[in-house]
Structures are given as structure tokens and as C-alpha cells.
């Protein structure tokens, strides 16, 4: 853990969860800044807009993505994100974080090369620390 993550991104519609993760990140000082989007559409629009004005400090290193969200769900986000991710010069690590224990979801996540890992909620503090360490 030589280099700390500067910017991480959470895309999740569950406010309570988001606040708790935020608290953990702050308490454990896992990263400096945190972007939060409440559904896939808000998330993807951020990345698509970012392409127009590419500033490295605005590109998150880690994305924690929920699956079940209104408007645009996690799968929809990944579909659109995969098309543009190579245009960012810096690596972006994508984690799916969901309370779904449906094997179809888990298998689908495994089949996608753009997904680094599938975390089942509740994530505990150790797991979160590991995510932020590994990507460092």
C-alpha cells in the first residue's frame, strides 16, 4: 500500500449502504475522494462526459457498482462502460457489489472480463480494505 487511491466511485441506489461505506472509507482513510451516483445512468453519463474533457484527476481508479438499480442497472452500465473504458489512459478497476446471491448474476459477472470481482453484500471492512489495497 505504497500509493493511496485518490478517487473511487460508488454507483448504488441504496442510501444507507452508501453512507456506511463512505463512513468506512473515511474512518479507514482508504481514499481521498469519493464519487457517488444513485443509478447506472448517472454513473455512465459522468464517464461519457469525462471523455470530452479528459482530466486524469477526475478518473476514478476503483468503481463499486451495484446490480439492481432503477433506470439503468449495473449490467446496462457495464455494457456502455466497456465501450469507452479503453479511451481512458489510466486503469479503472470495476467491482460488482450486490446483495444478489443469484447464481445467474454471479456467473454473468464472472464471464465479463471487465469485472474484476463480484462482492456479495454485506461487504465487511476487511474486504473493502483489500479492494482498495489491491488496486493500489
Amino acid at each position: 500500500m505504497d500509493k493511496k487511491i485518490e478517487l473511487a466511485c460508488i454507483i448504488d441506489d441504496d442510501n444507507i449502504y452508501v453512507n456506511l461505506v463512505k463512513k468506512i472509507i473515511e474512518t479507514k482513510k482508504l481514499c481521498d475522494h469519493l464519487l457517488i451516483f444513485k443509478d447506472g445512468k448517472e454513473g455512465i453519463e459522468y464517464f461519457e462526459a469525462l471523455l470530452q474533457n479528459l482530466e486524469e484527476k477526475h478518473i476514478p481508479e476503483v468503481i463499486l457498482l451495484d446490480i439492481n438499480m432503477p433506470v439503468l442497472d449495473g449490467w446496462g452500465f457495464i455494457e456502455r462502460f466497456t465501450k469507452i473504458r479503453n479511451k481512458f489512459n489510466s486503469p479503472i478497476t470495476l467491482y460488482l457489489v450486490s446483495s444478489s446471491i443469484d447464481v445467474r448474476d454471479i456467473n454473468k459477472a464472472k464471464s465479463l472480463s471487465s469485472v474484476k470481482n463480484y462482492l456479495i453484500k454485506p461487504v465487511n471492512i476487511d474486504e473493502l480494505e483489500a479492494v482498495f489495497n489491491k488496486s493500489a
Partner: protein
Amino acid sequence: MTEPALKKNIISNNEICYWELINNTSHWSKAFIKELGYSKKKVVTTIDFFLDHIIHEDYRAPFKDNFYNLVRHDVDFKQNILLKNKEGKYLEYICKTNDEIAVDTNINSKTIFFFKTKLKTHKKVRVDNFYYQETATMTSTGSWYVDFEKKKSYWDNITRKILEYPDDYIPSLKMGYKLYAEEHQTLASNAFFECGMSGKPFDIEILMVTANNRKFWARAMGKPVFNDAEQIIGLRGVFQDIDDVKQKEINLEKTSEIIASQNSRLFNFAHIVSHNLRSHSSNLSLIVNLINEVDKEEKLELIENIKDVSHSLNTTIEHLNEVVTIQTNAQQAKEAVSFAITLKQVATSINQIIKTTNTTIVSDFTSIEDINYIPAYMDSILLNLITNAIKYKHKDRDPVIKIRTYLDFKDNDRVVLEIKDNGSGIDLKKFGDKLFGMYKTFHYNTDARGIGLFITKNQIESLNGEITVESELNKGTIFTIKF
């Protein structure tokens, strides 16, 4: 009656056809000569004349053998035979020697009896024809033939019956397409064309139309008819009325669809239970996890979070409860529910929203005024779909909701309720399969809870109905409910 007396009796009977051979001379009975259309003078009653002029060539050789065996070796025989009368018409007989008919024999005379079997054959043909007719009638299979050379088509009576045309109806080639339902005319013309051109036989299930304009499912089979030069000169085939079977098949498919959709709802429900309850429990455990890590002040803050979790958990459980009770409530007594009265009640209950949004509701229930239904469900269905239409109104115009009932002629006259709005529409390509799912919302409205359509669909399906949706972005949405 003793046996010789019997024989005497028979022989003396003028009606019997026979030959009597006495010392190698054959005597033909009067009846036999008469049957063959000859007069006694003009006939030569010898075996040679018989073989040359009377017996059909196919039977000549065996009869000759039998005859000489009888004369020379006293071997009795029995055989079928075709005899030509004077006019040249063939008659069918069975001939038997006296031994064969078990009558006492006179040592010096040998007798060959000829019994007409024409009647029997007729009977046989009639019996065969009867079986053919019965099979065709019972299986509702009519035959047809199209003659390319004469440009004519022929039907048997069963075909006329199946297609409800009068018995004396003469079909023509031109009217062929009329026999098929509009949606299947291309299918029919393709099958006939391909069969006529390349000789490919066909066997298809197709919707046909009778003379009385009644549609029914038929199995149509056809194959080419070739001439000696192997050119296709016509088509031959059958139509079979399979409407009963096909309707059953369609019903079975429908039942299977209902079961599949019930199954998918159950699965959805299990998923919801798993996902929605899990998300709360995981939040709880995350809080507990975190409480150990933070100082006192922050601990109190986290306890506040537990309240939030508890509140959401309650809401979820209420929703799940709502879904579960639908299945139980489906057993409730149905009663006549008036569409107009229910709509009035619903409109009154959301009067405030209707006024503030300037919503217009136009209704036409003249076609069907009421239906046997669970009143609370009708209430809930109308309320959900109307509030939905208002919630997702188009930003540039006031909501206009048109509600009507009608009978679906294509689907056993089922009662249909249609709710059409001029709202913002839904992108069905994107959300079609999720529209009726639980906790699925597709709009940015903050009050979207994603439970209304799920409940509505469950209520309709629990009473064996169907709900479908058509929508176009920026134009509006039509919900169609078949009861």
C-alpha cells in the same frame, strides 16, 4: 330331408347354373345358358368353346387344369372365375364341384356349379366404400385434386362438408385463396406453388375459412401428380379439420404460458425476498461491523442508521405481504362489478391529483358495462393504471386518459379493458421485460416505487387474465387487460 333328395332338389331347380358331365359330355343348365345371354341353339356346350369364348383369360389356365383334373382324376375344386356374357360384359362367379358343396354324388356324373358372386363383390366394394366414408367422416378428412391440364379442381363430399359448401358446389381454381384465412394466404400459396413447380409435397397446419366465413384449423397435405413423362400435371391431397385438436393445443400453450408466468412471478418473488431482505440485513451487519471501529459519538449516529434500516425493512415486508395476499384473495367471491361505478369511485378518491394535474379522463363502457370480478381488484387495477398515467405524464401537455371496454373477437370474445394515455411513454425495447417486475422503475420521478404494476399484473393473473402494454416514447402508453 335326405341328401340325394337335396341334390335332386337343387339340380331340378331352374335357377341353378351348373354343368353336368356325363361320360365326357357336358350339359349346361338352362339357367347357366340364360345367364350368359345365349340361347340354347347358339351355344356350344363344350369345354373348348367355354375356354375360348366365355372365360376371362386370367382364369383360363387354372380352370383348364381344374377341369381336366376333375374329369380324369376325380379331383374336386373350387375357384373364382370371370365369365363373359354375350354382350361382352364380365360377371364374377365362384365355381364349385359337387364334393365341395357337400352333396351326395352320382358316380357317373360330375357337376360343376357356378354361383354368381357379383352381389358379394358389390357388397365388398360397398363395404370398402363405407369404411372409406366412415374414416373420412370420422377424421374429417376431405380429398381434393387440382388438374393443371384441364385447369379444374375437384373436391369430394367431405371436403365440401368441412368447408361448408353445398353438395353440388363446383370449386374453381380462382377461388382457391378464399379458402384460407387472410393471415395464412401466403403460406398456402407458397406451399401449393412449390408443390406445383418443384414437386415438393407439403404437410402444413393452416387456418382455413369456410363458405360461412368460419375460421378453423386444418391440416393440409398435398403432393404432385405426374404423367408418364414425369411432368407435374396436377396436385392431389387432403384437408383435415383439426380445429378441436389445434384449439386444445392452443389452450395448452396458453396454460403453459400462464404457468410459466406464474413460475416467473414466483421466481421474481423469491428473488425479491432474497435480494430486498438481504440488502437490509447486509446493511445491518455492516453497521454492527462499523460500530466496533468508531468512537462513541459516531456510534450514536450509526444507531440512527439502524432506524432507517428498520423502516425500510418494514416497508419491504409490507410490500411482500401485499403480494402474498393477492394469491389468497383470488379465492374471494366475485360479483358483478360495473366499470363506470368503479371508475367514478377511483376518480373521486384521487380527485385532488386529477384537479391539480388538469387530467381529463374519457371513458366508454357501452360495449361491456360490467364483469364478474373481485371488486377490490378492479378498484386497485384502475387506480394503479390511472395514477401511473398521471405520474408519467408528458411534460408538455395535460394528461388525457381514455378508458374503454370491448370484446376481443379473435380471442373467444374475451372482455378487454383498455387504458390509453398521452404521457411520456416507456422505452419497451429497453425495459419491456422488466416493466411488470417488482422495484423496477424507469423514470426519474422520485415517487416511483416500482410496486404498482407488479401488484396489478399479479392481481390480473391470479384471476387468469392477462395484461399487455404498447408504448411509444413521447406519444403515450396503452395498457390492455384481457379478463
